[in-house]
């Protein structure tokens, strides 16, 4: 039959098959096992999968995690967090805090060079500081630097900052990436400088190329001050879909990614998968909570909040949302860190106690719903759209609370609208949100009663004079013991008051192809010693031309 179908379609199919056959075959991706000798060797490349693309390499003017991560390969700060989330020196070899706590003197490393060969000096740190407070720089992080009363660079290897009052979080703020003065001083707005697209830093890797929306490539910097990294090349591929990234991992297109709980529990337990990949698990630095608008007529009463905390089945949440890969959150600090208080009041799942507390607060049961003064106990829980974990959390909480006679409606709103229409205007009953837990325990902005204005972070309206005082104490001293005492007491108060029901802290689940050695999980995760990762010579996959 000479139908036009055949005439048109066959050549097309042939053409496509030609293309398919012309390309390379499937890469060998099975690891050859740990039997190979474990000698560190230079070479090979690591391909990371990233959900979002970089939006710029100057961390001062970007706010997304993907950009900051990419910039971290190229730039250094004065300090950084070590494997136990304690501050250690990076570009600063050491530092001293004056006895009154108002002056920090950084002693900078010697012999460090920018990737273009120019020497790194205190001038660069001074320049960075000046630009952070410069109104022409579109940065969201200037506030910490505006606390500086005076900054000086007495010699190329020393940088001194003075504050009006002792300010403990200040030390962490100097983890901000230092900018090269000689390359940026002629640009009044650093976000418009070429360095935002082609960065030059002092870090372990040099920038090679950025194909927007596709990938970023870095090559090892031979004269990095901690020693040349073993892995010669880092490639970050932009793969916005988690399922696609997992398929790429399995077929060798990606070497390292973060797994979701279902992927960890259901799809990577096979012997075949474990032959080629190593999975890791460590406590993530974030928690999810149910926050109450404390000015809401229902939630002003502490007993009601505590009752809801008792009604919430946190184990079910962890099992349902995280498939067991997480732990209960008892407060706003990360379990296992020095500021975490393990001995605060806990709220195990106890619907009977919850009902008793609610009855005490004046709520009577009628046809399965609690009623007080003719009003049923109904409210809306708001959360942001697109977050599967929070949506599931809401669904489970809905069932938990229904058991004690509380009916909730769940409403998801797109993020920008959520923040602007509901959070900022305080037009909500309760929200399900999460916070990142910063390594420095100062949480002034979240719990202090002065931070309840619009756009400020104390959106539930928590106001406790003792907590206010303790927050001030905690941030005005560098003495670790004093800070620990203050933060321990804050956690006790928060556990009693329950302005949030603290729900859970998830586990981070990275997975890496097992040809990469030198990975040691720690509280900070696995990438803190990235420059020490290597692939033994016989297992190297990519041949990297210098």
């Amino acid at each position: 039959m000479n139908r036009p179908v055949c005439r048109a379609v066959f050549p097309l199919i042939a053409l496509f098959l030609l293309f398919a056959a012309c390309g390379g075959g499937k890469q060998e991706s099975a690891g050859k096992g740990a039997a190979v000798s474990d000698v560190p060797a230079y070479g090979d490349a690591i391909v990371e999968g990233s959900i979002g693309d970089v939006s710029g390499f100057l961390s001062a003017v970007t706010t997304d995690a993907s950009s900051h991560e990419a910039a971290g390969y190229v730039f250094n700060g004065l300090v950084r967090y070590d494997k136990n989330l304690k501050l250690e020196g990076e570009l600063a070899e050491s530092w001293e805090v004056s006895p009154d706590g108002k002056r920090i003197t950084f002693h900078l490393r010697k012999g460090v060079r920018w990737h273009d060969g120019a020497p790194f000096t205190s001038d660069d740190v001074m320049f960075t500081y000046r630009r952070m407070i410069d109104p022409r720089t579109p940065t969201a992080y200037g506030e910490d630097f505006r606390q500086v009363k005076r900054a000086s660079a007495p010699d190329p290897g020393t940088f001194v900052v003075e504050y009006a009052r002792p300010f403990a979080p200040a030390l962490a703020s100097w983890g901000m990436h230092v900018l090269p003065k000689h390359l940026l001083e002629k640009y009044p707005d650093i976000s418009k400088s070429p360095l935002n697209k082609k960065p030059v830093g002092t870090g372990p890797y040099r920038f090679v190329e950025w194909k927007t929306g596709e990938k970023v490539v870095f090559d090892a910097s031979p004269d990095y001050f901690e020693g040349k990294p073993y892995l010669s090349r880092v490639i970050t591929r932009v793969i916005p879909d988690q399922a696609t990234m997992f398929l790429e991992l399995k077929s060798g297109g990606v070497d390292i990614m973060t797994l979701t709980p279902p992927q960890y529990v259901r799809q990577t337990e096979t012997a075949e998968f474990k032959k080629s990949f190593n999975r890791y698990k460590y406590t993530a630095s974030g928690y999810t909570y149910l926050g109450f608008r404390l000015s809401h007529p229902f939630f002003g009463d502490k007993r009601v909040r505590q009752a809801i905390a008792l009604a919430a089945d946190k184990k079910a949440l962890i099992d349902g949302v995280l498939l067991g890969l997480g732990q209960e959150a008892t407060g706003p600090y990360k379990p296992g860190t020095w500021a975490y208080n393990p001995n605060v009041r806990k709220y195990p799942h106890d619907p009977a106690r919850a009902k008793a507390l609610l009855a005490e607060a004046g709520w009577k049961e009628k046809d399965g719903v609690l009623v007080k003064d003719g009003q049923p106990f109904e409210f809306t829980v708001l959360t942001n759209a697109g977050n599967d974990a929070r949506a599931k959390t809401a669904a489970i909480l809905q069932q938990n609370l229904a058991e004690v006679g509380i009916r909730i409606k769940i409403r998801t709103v797109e993020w920008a609208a959520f923040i602007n229409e509901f959070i900022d205007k305080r037009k909500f009953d309760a929200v399900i949100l999460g916070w990142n837990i910063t390594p420095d325990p100062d949480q002034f902005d979240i719990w202090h009663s002065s931070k309840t204005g619009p756009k400020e972070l104390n959106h539930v309206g928590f106001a406790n004079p003792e907590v206010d005082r303790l927050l001030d104490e905690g941030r005005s001293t560098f003495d670790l013991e004093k800070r620990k005492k203050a933060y321990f007491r804050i956690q006790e108060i928060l556990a009693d008051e329950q302005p949030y029901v603290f729900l859970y802290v998830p586990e981070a689940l990275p997975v890496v192809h097992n040809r990469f050695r030198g990975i040691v999980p720690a509280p900070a995760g696995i990438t803190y010693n990235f420059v020490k990762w290597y692939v033994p010579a016989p297992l190297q996959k990519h041949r990297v031309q210098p």
Partner: protein
Amino acid sequence: MLRYIARRLLLTVPLLVGISLVSFLMMHMAPGGPIGAGTDLNPKATAESRARLKAYYGLDLPLHVQYGRWLGRMATLDFGDSFSPDGRPVAEKIKERIPITLTINVLSMGLIFLVAIPVGVYSAVRKGSLFDRISTVAVFTGFAIPTFWLALLMMILFGVKLGWLPISGISSLDHESLGMLGRIADRGRHLVLPVLLAGFGGLAGMSRYMRSNMLEVIRQDYVATARAKGLPERTVVFRHAMRNALLPVITILGLSVPDLLGGSVIFETIFAIPGMGQLFYQGVMSRDYPLIMGILTIGAFLTLLGNLLADVGYALADPRIRQGS
């Protein structure tokens, strides 16, 4: 006819201005703003830094001033700079994404035309036959199946299990080191799955449309006349019937012009294709006003142009319509 075209072209400019004004207002009506992305729930961002950022982007000016500035820039075809942290010109960001989106859309549209039209014609000519029935089921299956799910299945089959095709992206890691032919082949391999899947869903519409047009045309008297004259069936079908049945396809071609630069963000996300769909979606989510306005304006221009082409084309091809317009 020429007067009609001239009139439509003249109308395009005020229409574009009107559309851009409506878009601008709608955009600002949605809650949130561009500085939200970085400063919302960010403990380090204060009221001062927010105010500073607002002034930096010109967002503290009254709406009509902001619109006026934008319009003035557009008059010189200056799309302005994006509000995202990289601050690159909007025109540059759009230009980067157009080639790949255009390629995929043209190829998948080509696939649809090349497959659906013959299938539709044949189904009409052999109405009720096995081919007709099977092709109906096949195209509707393609229409009903969720493409993102099918995409993942195809990726697993061809990417992971068989290793014939790459799973995602538009080029391999060593793309730059390949020769010219190698690069075309590499790009081609990456596009096989996206184009096939994009086309699969669209086959139903076009083939059924073709089929019903063809059926209607075949019923006409002049076709019976042609057959009665003793012409071979092939001539009847191709020269007489199909040509007339293809007329509405011209309309569809014209109407598809604005879609050429559009992309499905779900599709692009799954295949990690840096296309216009993702660009627009991310622009909307981060309220990147200049980028959004730029893309909407281009889309509006193409829509107006496409509609004009469709109307003119149809009028030219079908004498019955010419009188009406």
